[in-house]
């Protein structure tokens, strides 16, 4: 109880509140401006949090995460372009609502719905994470090995595009994680005599390059926002539309649950949750034909779901060290920089910081309501910022961030190199998410595999038997196979309409 009290005090201290507020403002702006994603924002801003106290730094990142996930809806509704990928489903009914002159209603409903979704998942995180962390104490080397494999396989099978490409990305990430010293023997691999690689590819630097440089190139390609049709502006009183939330309360609740569960599954992202919630809302609606023509549930469902993902993704991260998505993979980097290791110790030795961070998520989800509504009023002005001004600014921030980590110029060159790799992957249609998870989880996968084999004196047959006979391992193995099977099934379904003429 003392711990909770001091954590709450930490979350509500002026420093933390200010950090949260800055994060929320930054997050809403990033969400509103198309071309800037949550992943990029968190990657670029982590270096800013290095010298801040852990709770303040984490609260700021949490604010960016929650607010940017919501912010994309504003542009989706007002301008018919998703500000972030998570708002892709919001356009379907948001655009028609704006055309009908109901932009204010759409934005109000979406803002409140997102807040409810986010608060719900933060509550689940608060209640579920501690017992799950204690349960994870039973995990041994084989379990952690399979957990790593599961994380990569899920994100590979669920990511946009073909599963083969998702797996290629994941395997590339795993290979990148082998650069540097072997986790047990210390032998140097793939370093080519470069000391800055001895400790491995620095995660934050790689992620900054991977997620910001390709976006910079896209922004420069856009040059003008000629394609943005300014459909409407936001003006009005949000509270007039609370009645909508009560009318569609089951949609909000169901979408929040869907989003939280999808978030908890390592690898599944916000856009999947958004589309799933949208489809579910349509399926269970008494008037499904209204969807796509300006149904309020059609914007409420995806937005409540995508914000509910935020808390969910933090569950496997904080308890098992397995990021729920690319953003939380970067969070992991942030945690490690502040000396926090995911697992049971976060809820025991580091409990004040951890619970302080979780409480700050509640604050973030409330704060983005007024901030978002103000931003919506100025959205037209915000969107006039030319992409070709944003692009070099992002490069400067990326260079700053990469340098600030270890004061190493080589890290900056590495960041640019990863940017080139990221752009190549984008052109090839290879998703970046699985690579991130591979990079983050690879050390754990190899290390735990080596440990598990060492415990059976290198007897591979015995190791494989253990995987199947230990109950938790067996469940994880089945889940791995299921996720790969599901990916193959999805591939087959997608391949049907594009069969050759």
């Amino acid at each position, binding site marked *: 109880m003392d711990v909770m009290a001091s954590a709450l005090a930490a979350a509500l201290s002026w420093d933390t509140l200010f950090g949260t507020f800055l994060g929320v403002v930054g997050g809403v702006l990033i969400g509103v401006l198309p071309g800037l994603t949550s992943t990029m924002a968190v990657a670029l801003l982590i270096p800013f949090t290095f010298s801040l106290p852990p709770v303040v730094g984490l609260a700021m990142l949490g604010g960016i995460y929650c607010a940017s996930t919501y912010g994309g809806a504003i542009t989706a509704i007002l301008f018919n372009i998703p500000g972030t990928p998570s708002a892709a489903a919001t356009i379907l009914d948001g655009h028609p609502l704006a055309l009908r002159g109901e932009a204010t209603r759409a934005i109000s409903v979406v803002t409140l719905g997102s807040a409810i979704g986010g608060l719900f998942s933060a509550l689940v995180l608060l209640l579920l994470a501690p017992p799950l962390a204690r349960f994870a104490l039973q995990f041994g080397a084989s379990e952690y090995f399979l957990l790593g494999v599961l994380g990569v396989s899920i994100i590979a099978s669920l990511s946009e595009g073909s599963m083969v490409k998702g797996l290629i990305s994941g395997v590339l990430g795993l290979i990148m994680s082998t650069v540097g010293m072997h986790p047990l023997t210390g032998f140097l691999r793939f370093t080519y005599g470069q000391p800055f690689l001895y400790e491995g590819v620095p995660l934050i630097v790689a992620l900054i390059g991977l997620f910001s440089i390709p976006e910079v190139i896209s922004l420069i390609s856009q040059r003008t926002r000629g394609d943005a049709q300014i459909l409407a502006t936001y003006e009005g009183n949000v509270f007039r539309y609370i009645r909508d939330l009560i009318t569609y309360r089951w949609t909000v609740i169901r979408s929040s649950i869907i989003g939280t569960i999808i978030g908890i599954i390592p690898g599944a992202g916000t856009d999947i949750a958004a589309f799933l919630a949208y489809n579910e809302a349509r399926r269970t609606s008494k008037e499904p034909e209204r969807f796509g023509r300006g149904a309020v549930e059609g914007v409420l469902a995806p937005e409540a779901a995508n914000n509910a993902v935020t808390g969910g993704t933090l569950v496997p991260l904080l308890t098992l060290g397995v990021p729920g998505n690319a953003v939380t993979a970067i969070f992991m980097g942030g945690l490690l920089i502040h000396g926090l290791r995911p697992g049971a110790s976060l809820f025991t030795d580091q409990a004040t910081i951890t619970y302080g961070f979780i409480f700050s998520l509640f604050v973030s989800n409330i704060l983005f309501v007024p901030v978002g509504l103000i931003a919506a009023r100025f959205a037209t002005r915000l969107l006039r910022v030319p992409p070709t001004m944003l692009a070099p600014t992002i490069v400067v921030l990326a260079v*700053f961030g990469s340098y600030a980590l270890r004061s190493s*110029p080589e890290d900056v060159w590495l960041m640019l190199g990863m940017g080139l790799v990221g752009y190549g992957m984008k052109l090839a249609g290879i998703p970046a998410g699985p690579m991130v998870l591979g990079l983050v989880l690879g050390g754990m996968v190899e290390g735990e595999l080596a440990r598990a084999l060492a415990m059976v004196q290198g007897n591979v047959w015995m190791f494989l038997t253990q995987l199947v006979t230990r109950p938790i391992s067996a469940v994880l193995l089945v889940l791995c196979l299921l996720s790969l099977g599901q990916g193959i099934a999805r591939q087959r379904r997608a391949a049907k309409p594009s069969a050759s003429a």
Partner: protein
Amino acid sequence: MVMNPAAFRDLLAGVVVAVVGLYLTATSFSYPAHSSGFPRALSVLLTVLALVLVVNGLRARKAVPVSSQDEAAPSPDLVEPAESVERANVGALAFTLIGGAVYVALIPVLGFFTAATVYLIASFIILGHRRGTTALLYPVAFCASLYLLFSKFLGVPFPTGLFL
């Protein structure tokens, strides 16, 4: 025969990744057994996946390209996120990488913040923002704020050259 662009993209990507996979597999043989198993297994897997991609590309080369999703009301079936296909923009790529490289190379010469200011000014001018307020005022203001925040407030040491 005109190849389906998506298939060509897959074919090319598959070949490049397969070459990378083969190179990494070969490199792994120069490491002792206890440290090479995992990277070698992954490199072999990578090569196999790349070859699958090549085969997929070859199979689909005669397919008619699928048109982009209808923007009208969603189909009765499940609505899924549309796959985005990026077209290479060599100009933007060159500008970003060469510009970025020049900027980074100038850091030890001019100092971190001065190089950033020069880079921003030059970028804005090249990209068409030539009004004084935009091209000069914003870069100076932005870099000055970053200097105050990082160097003074957070105390992160940055390389200096001729200037800051």
